[in-house]
């Protein structure tokens, strides 16, 4: 959007003290908050911070964490992807509907699903860059279309099952030590951090998010960077959809959806990826997704219903974004 082109700067000039403050917050602040939360929860209920419980929470957090990675990458370029939740639902129902719980054709169907996710992201990217549609409008339309496709495909009811191997990926424990989903989540995060920090494309992503016009003028193919970011986001959403399907075990139009859309944005914001683009990273998102899941489970334990958690997620997004925007503004 317009103002972003002129107003974007990261928290990196002038006041050294505020700079340090901002840096701590945007780099490792989330883990600090995570530790404090764990400490407080530990005092309230020691069973909550036992290793096995934390690990099973990490298993539950994996789909959210994975989809939040995709969201963060797109947000680093200064856009959003609102179709991530709907992509997860689509992957869930199509996989369940075609596999019907059998292991036959598992690999080709998985490849097809991943390709489908990437294709959705690619279409988003092309719409945003070549057709010059604002990202949130494009992905909003995509969200509606995908939701329609899901409803037409399932006819508004449950649809099929996922085979046990995928269910193991979603909720199984490798050797009873660590959940498979958590391992996948960690591995993907490491790959993502590598891609963003060590490859040229990664630095292009930060440059594009920081200032698209300058990036364009300095010879970066901004369109290609954006298309690749969106495609990657779609692909990652598909992976998240598969992991979530493994956890749920069956296909339904209610799996995934809005909850994961809001959650992915909240996790990215908590992790320090701001909306103006170019600032943040995937390690923060990792912590953000985990923190969200922990607080969510605590809220559930306290007997707070769906209503309370909606209010909570919404307020988190608003308050934390406002906080970060203030910090970056002050630092300028």
């Amino acid at each position, binding site marked *: 959007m317009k103002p972003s082109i002129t107003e974007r700067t990261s928290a990196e000039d002038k006041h050294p003290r505020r700079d340090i403050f901002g840096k701590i917050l945007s780099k490792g602040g989330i883990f600090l908050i995570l530790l404090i939360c764990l400490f407080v929860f530990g005092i309230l209920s020691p069973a909550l911070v036992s290793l096995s419980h934390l690990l099973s929470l990490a298993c539950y957090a994996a789909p959210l964490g994975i989809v939040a990675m995709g969201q963060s990458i797109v947000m680093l370029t200064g856009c*959003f992807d609102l179709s991530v939740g709907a992509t997860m639902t689509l992957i869930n129902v199509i996989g369940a509907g075609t596999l019907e719980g059998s292991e036959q054709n598992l690999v080709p169907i998985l490849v097809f699903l991943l390709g489908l996710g990437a294709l959705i992201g690619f279409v988003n990217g092309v719409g945003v860059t070549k*057709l*010059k549609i604002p990202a*949130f409008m494009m992905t909003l*339309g995509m969200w*509606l279309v995908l939701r329609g496709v899901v409803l037409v495909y399932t006819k508004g009811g449950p649809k099929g099952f996922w085979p046990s191997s995928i269910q193991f990926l979603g909720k199984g424990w490798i050797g009873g030590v660590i959940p498979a989903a958590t391992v996948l989540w960690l591995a993907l995060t490491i790959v993502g951090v590598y891609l963003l920090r060590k490859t040229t494309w990664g630095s292009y992503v930060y440059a594009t998010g920081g200032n698209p016009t300058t990036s364009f003028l300095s010879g970066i193919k901004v369109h290609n960077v954006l298309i690749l970011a969106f495609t990657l986001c779609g692909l990652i959403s598909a992976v998240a959809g598969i992991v979530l399907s493994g956890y749920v075990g069956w296909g339904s139009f209610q799996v995934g959806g809005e909850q994961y859309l809001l959650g992915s944005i909240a996790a990215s914001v908590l992790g320090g990826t701001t909306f103006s683009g170019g600032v943040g990273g995937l390690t923060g998102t990792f912590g953000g997704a985990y923190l969200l899941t922990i607080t969510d489970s605590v809220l559930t334990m306290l007997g707070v*219903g*769906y209503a309370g958690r*909606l209010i909570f997620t919404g307020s988190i997004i608003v308050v934390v974004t406002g906080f970060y925007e203030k910090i970056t503004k002050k630092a300028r």
Partner: protein
Amino acid sequence: MVTPVSGIWQGNKLLSRIKTGPWIIYVILVLFFLFNVVFCPFFWTGFNISNIISQSAVLMLVSVGQSFAIIGGGLDFSVGGIVSLTTCFIATQMRNSPFSMLLTLALILCVGMGIGAINGTGIAFFGINPFIMTIGTMSVAKGISFVFREYPGGYVPPAYIKGMTWSIGFVPVVPVLLMVGAVTTGAVLFRKTCFGRYVYAVGGNEESARAIGINVNATKILSFVVCALFATMGGLFMTARIASGDPFIGDSFPLDSITAVVLGGVIIGGGRGSLMGVVAGVILIGVFNVVLTLFDVSPYYQYIIKGALLIFAVAITFRKEKREYA
């Protein structure tokens, strides 16, 4: 970049109006209307037309409000949450006495405006992206409506329903009055008040608006308050229409209202467009919803068609503008 002043008031008035006006949407609307009259036997019946009008009334109110947010350079997603919240609040709190009715009405209007003020404050003073700010408040408002009613239901006083849906023969008087009133109020606000012109100026170019001494922050906040107020009034009428409170009823409104506004020629990013087009956009969507049902299209396909319509509308309008790089 968007040029700072809307083209409507420059040069030869009539000619430039025809050039920049939202006439395409009216042509589409008329063609679509004729198509339906010819091919759909039930379309041109008194009952169906009055049904379309009642259905469009809520969307009209919400979309007029949404125009303020969008022309001012923002976007309001929380309108859906506000509509849901209003229906749930009225259906649980309103009792069958005039005093209680007035009190609940006053309360919910204040709550609506409060949500708008929060949106505006976050966007203007904290610099939060409007989209994120309002998606956050939408989630909060929806959560609060769940607190009032977890599932559709509740009690709405019959007198309230009767008053809100009063009609003579096939003519739904109150919806028509509401629609005309909303559009007139909106148009007067846009064209005859300083605030309306400031909204265009701020949406067109925030920096220049600030430079010429417009209180940008106040304008932004006020535009979101007006938006939320219209959405609340839409919710009030919706309550009477469904005669209950429903925390899910508002879910389609953010998208429908944005689509209507964009179809009407208002450009996302602000500063351009008028309520003339928005009216046509709302009626088009209203007719569209009803006709899909009349042609026996599964409601599930409506999502696909609406999503495609949204992308199409934005793609078309944005082709007119030249943006620098992407």
